């Protein structure tokens, strides 16, 4: 067992777990106050249901030997998972810890989807959906890339989950927003965020947690972790600056919501590349990634497609761009794994594209099927009145903020 690696992975796992409450604030601040709790609960419930299911089923399907497509059942209920070291000789960490680390990824990936369907999806339907989704969609794709499946054999590079996490969640979000349909008052009123400081808080803490996400994906406290850390720190700085300049060019005013979004987009885009690229490539990649998400978001907002918090633009597009640019900027000299197009290996971009496409198709189809199946059991949307009165009261029997006293009588 490498104790230094263990120390780093202990804190990395805690950091990634923290990202889900952070996401709750990033998303929760952007909705109207009558839906603030419901939006936050969509992240928190993932900590419960996906966390449990991961230990019982998901880990086995993703990381047990199995075949090229899916892990086998040999680690259901964490059978055979214990204190023994896993990983390359000299950099081993306890198997339990590795399982936990991967579990935090499953939790946040499922929670990411919620941004597309907030303010209207029935809470019970959502909870059932993400539970199944984490088993049926997330675990297999994780297996393809990190569990020894076909994409890893093909040589696809995905350092910390650009495809597994972000493209995957982005596509599921797209499908979900489309199946659910827009909020009833979408396009008729300005659905302005109720608490932008919460969104900034979420973005700030997400960045902090993302160091565990990306640099932790080295699964060791070594140079690769430092490389990934550097990329994770620098890429979003460039995205933030470019986004602000785009804001200024378009409307004269750099927005706070834009800044929060830019940080997330930069982090998403650097995720697949983090441990493969140098710092100047990271800056470039971060800056470039601002464009598709910025204009994608603009375009989406002009349509009747209500991906409420722009999960597709931020995670779907950002993840795709990141995955492709990983195939451009990767540098064998740094990581010993593979070169990208810029360093003489243009074929890598194709491999990257294949991986993205595979995730899009699989996640798209399966997410659709799952939603339809869940819809047979529980209506996916809240009732018209429940949506209008607000999801906090209708789904949870609570209001997020009560300022006056004496506004409630005990029954």
């Amino acid at each position, binding site marked *: 067992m490498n104790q230094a690696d263990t120390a780093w992975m202990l804190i990395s796992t805690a950091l990634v777990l923290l990202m889900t409450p952070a996401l709750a604030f990033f998303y929760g601040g952007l909705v109207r106050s009558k839906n603030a709790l419901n939006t936050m609960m969509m992240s928190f419930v993932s900590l419960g249901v996906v966390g449990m299911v991961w230990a019982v089923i998901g880990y086995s399907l993703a990381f047990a030997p199995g075949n090229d497509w899916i892990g086998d059942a040999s680690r259901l209920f964490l059978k055979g998972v214990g204190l023994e070291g896993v990983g390359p000789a000299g950099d081993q960490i306890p198997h339990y810890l590795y399982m936990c680390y991967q579990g935090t990824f499953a939790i946040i990936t499922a929670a990411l989807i919620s941004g597309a369907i907030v303010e209207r999806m029935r809470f019970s339907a959502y909870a059932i959906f993400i539970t199944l989704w984490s088993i049926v969609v997330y675990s297999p794709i994780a297996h393809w890339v990190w569990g020894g499946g076909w994409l890893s054999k093909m040589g696809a590079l995905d350092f910390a989950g650009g495809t597994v996490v972000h493209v995957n969640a982005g596509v599921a979000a797209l499908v979900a927003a489309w199946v659910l349909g827009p909020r009833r008052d979408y396009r008729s*009123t300005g659905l302005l965020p109720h608490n932008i400081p919460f969104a900034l808080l979420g973005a700030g803490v997400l960045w902090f947690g993302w160091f565990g996400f990306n640099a932790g994906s080295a699964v060791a406290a070594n140079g690769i972790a430092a490389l990934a850390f550097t990329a994770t720190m620098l890429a979003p700085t460039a995205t933030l600056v470019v986004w602000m300049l785009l804001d200024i060019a378009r409307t004269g005013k750099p927005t706070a919501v834009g800044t929060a979004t830019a940080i997330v987009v930069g982090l998403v885009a650097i995720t697949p590349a983090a441990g493969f690229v140098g710092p100047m490539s990271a800056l470039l990649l971060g800056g470039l990634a601002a464009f598709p998400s910025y204009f994608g978001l603009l375009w989406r907002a002009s349509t009747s497609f209500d991906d409420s918090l722009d999960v597709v633009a931020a995670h779907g597009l950002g993840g795709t761009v990141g995955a492709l640019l990983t195939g451009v900027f990767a540098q064998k000299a740094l990581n010993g794994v593979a070169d990208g197009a810029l360093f003489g290996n243009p074929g890598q971009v194709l491999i990257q594209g294949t991986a993205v496409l595979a995730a899009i198709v699989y996640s798209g189809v399966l997410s659709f099927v799952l939603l339809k199946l869940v819809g047979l059991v529980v209506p996916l949307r809240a009732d018209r009145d429940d949506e209008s009165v607000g999801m906090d009261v209708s789904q949870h029997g609570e209001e997020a903020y009560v300022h006056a006293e004496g*506004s*409630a009588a*005990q029954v």
Partner: protein
Amino acid sequence: MQSVKSIVRPDKVDDVKEALAKIGVSGMTVTEVRGHGKQKGHTAVYRGKEYQVTLLPKMQIETVVPDDIVEAAVQAIITAARTGEIGDGRVFVAPVTRSYKIRTGEREGM
């Protein structure tokens, strides 16, 4: 000159504003309020106790208009704010003796 004060559902403010604009009323003051009426509140659950929250979020829109368009304003509001369900709210009309524009200081001729 009269004050037309309406208590409406929070998601009806824009509709009312537009309806008033159509009949030429552009000035108004909007306040977040909580209303109690026939509409059943919701049950809040906290620490195992249940609370009946009977003061529900509403928006109050007050506009002071000349006598001759009071009726039109009332009808515009009622049409715009109605859903037909309990909880739609009220419109109250009350006399206003005079009105001043602070910017110019003059008494308004409406």
